[in-house]
């Protein structure tokens, strides 16, 4: 009986947590109960059918059927949740207002209910089919019916209880923030499901693992602990994620955040069938595109770049003191212990030219480190901010390297920035060429991209990506940036911290970066 209870509990818990979050997120929609019950019923019936047809499914796609089926179910749930999140962001405010005015149920579109129904059914179907197969085996093995029934009851009860607890816990969130929180939770949940789907595709050999397991936090929270399972569903926690899972997670999250922002500005509407399909399809499409673009496998460990995304903007008469650095976490020779730090000062000479002098450039690699020399960098702002869809700047710099066996270098290239509402995108395309005695031939190209979303000026979460085709190194990861105006002064502090992960085998596994700027007039 304990074995039955434990397995049933684990599977029910996962479905119950998903149902709880979706239920909370559709708070205030009438007839919700009927749709949840219907979803559970259809899901359970589907689970039995899937278990009965397990042999047939397993044989599909030359043996990959089971994995493709699992990944398909998960990605369908991701699309549904994506649709709902987009729909909520164009209707959530009005829903909150009506709920506050009427103190309860409001009449809203039926699209939300269909999503609720589908997500509940998919969650129950996936977890349920495993329970059915397990119980079938148990019955075949001759476990007593009474013991089995007690185990099922215990497992279902325990799992459902935790789901109910989560639901009521969520309801305690003040109404003002309620849909913001549940929407955020749904996005993380969807990103986690996408990462799990990626895992199934790797398992069947349909996707590469991208460097295998990137990190291991199982000593902190193990995947098979209760906390691990709960976090695994709610925020997509995985103790040992593979590179491609991290990529799917981030791609889904970025796509959802972008769609929500567009929906808020009325460019995408979650209501109506066409909008829903467009919204639902964009998420996996973007994820797949991101995967396709970044599909590069290489073996040679690669050197690092500056890990900074330059802004094309110049502010006349503004002075700046900047400290920045990065640190690589990778045990491979040539990457082990690599780190760098730089100190620079700059001033906006006029509205379009900002020279910057790097006084200290420290670099360490493979155990030995030292000062590298100086750099004179110029940012030119070529277009007035906001005049064109994209703001254009140009970077031109000269590096004087004093360390042994190094030559001087020039660096140049366009800097692009696009601002859309609270989103800011910055793209740098940089060419580097060594000059002087002993200089290498040819231009080395690298690019970088940053996207941030301004919750407030102090808090701008986002992502940064770096590509160095010459090194065959591609990295991306989350960052947090912000600006803090010092009260009663004309000065401010700007910060930027983040972690970028290697997307292919040759890239450094993990690079942490930080930048602090003091700006004053």
């Amino acid at each position, binding site marked *: 009986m304990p074995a039955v209870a434990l397995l049933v509990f684990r599977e029910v818990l996962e479905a119950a947590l998903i149902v709880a979050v979706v239920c909370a997120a559709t708070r205030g929609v009438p007839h919700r109960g009927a749709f949840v019950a219907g979803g559970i019923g259809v899901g359970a019936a589907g689970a039995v059918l899937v278990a009965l047809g397990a042999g047939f499914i397993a044989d599909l796609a030359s043996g990959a059927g089971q994995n493709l089926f699992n990944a398909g179910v998960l990605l369908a749930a991701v699309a549904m949740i994506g649709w709902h999140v987009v729909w909520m962001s164009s209707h959530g405010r009005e829903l909150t207002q009506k709920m506050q005015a009427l103190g309860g149920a409001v009449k809203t579109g039926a699209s939300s209910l269909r999503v609720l129904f589908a997500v509940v059914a998919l969650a129950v179907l996936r977890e349920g089919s495993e329970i059915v197969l397990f119980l079938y085996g148990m019955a075949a093995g001759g476990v007593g019916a009474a013991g089995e029934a007690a185990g099922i009851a215990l497992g279902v009860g325990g799992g459902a209880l935790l789901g109910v607890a989560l639901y009521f816990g969520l309801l305690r969130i003040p109404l003002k923030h309620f849909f913001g929180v549940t929407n955020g939770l749904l996005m993380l949940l969807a990103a986690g499901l996408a990462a799990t789907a990626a895992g199934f595709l790797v398992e069947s*050999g349909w996707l590469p693992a991208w460097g295998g397991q990137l990190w291991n936090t199982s000593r902190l929270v193990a995947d098979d602990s209760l906390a691990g399972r709960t976090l695994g569903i709610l925020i997509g926690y995985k103790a040992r994620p593979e590179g491609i899972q991290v990529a799917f997670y981030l791609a889904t999250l970025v796509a959802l955040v972008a769609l929500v922002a567009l929906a808020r500005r009325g460019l995408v509407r979650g209501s109506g069938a066409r909008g829903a399909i467009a919204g639902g399809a964009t998420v996996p499409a973007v994820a*797949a595109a991101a*995967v396709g673009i970044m599909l590069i496998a290489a073996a040679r460990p690669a050197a690092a770049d500056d890990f900074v995304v330059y802004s094309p903007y110049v502010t006349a008469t503004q002075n700046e003191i900047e400290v920045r650095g990065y640190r690589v976490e990778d045990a491979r020779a040539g990457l082990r212990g690599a780190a760098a730090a730089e100190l620079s000062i700059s001033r906006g000479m006029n509205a379009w030219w900002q020279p910057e002098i790097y006084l200290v450039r420290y670099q360490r690699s493979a155990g030995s480190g030292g000062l590298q020399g100086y750099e004179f960098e110029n940012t030119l702002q070529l277009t007035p901010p906001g005049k064109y869809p994209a703001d254009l700047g140009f970077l031109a710099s000269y590096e004087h390297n004093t360390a042994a066996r190094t030559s001087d270098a020039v660096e140049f290239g366009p800097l692009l920035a696009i601002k859309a509402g609270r989103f800011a995108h910055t793209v740098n395309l940089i060419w580097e060429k060594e000059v002087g005695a002993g200089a290498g031939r040819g231009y080395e190209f690298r690019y970088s991209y940053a996207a941030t979303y301004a919750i407030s000026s102090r808090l701008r979460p986002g992502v940064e990506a770096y590509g160095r085709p010459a090194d065959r190194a591609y990295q991306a990861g989350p960052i947090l940036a912000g600006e803090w105006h010092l009260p009663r002064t004309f000065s401010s502090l700007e910060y930027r911290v983040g972690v970028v992960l290697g997307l292919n085998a040759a890239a450094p596994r993990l690079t942490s970066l930080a930048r602090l700027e003091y700006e004053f007039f």
Partner: protein
Amino acid sequence: MKSFLASIALPMFALGAAVAAAGEVPEYTLVIKHHVYEPGSLKVAAGTRFKIRVVNEDASPEEFESTDFNREAVVLPKRSIVVYVGPLHAGTYRFFGDFHRDTANGRLIVE
């Protein structure tokens, strides 16, 4: 839903073809008999991708699962499945049969 399916299926097929073209990966075999894995420990090379064929000789289904290397797949009675694993760092990774956790336990030794 059609555009959604197409948006998923096309890149997947392309990727699948690309992976298939990448060459043969080494295969190891695990046999489940009387709810026990045979062999109980499997030695594989670190830093390479490989596949494990899990053969279920029992009359009841089993789920080949590992939280250490993140895999789960149901193996029906008298059937086999193939699971791609790795590349893994050197170390010991446990796997188990989710339907018979008390008996079906094994280790992957990666060197």
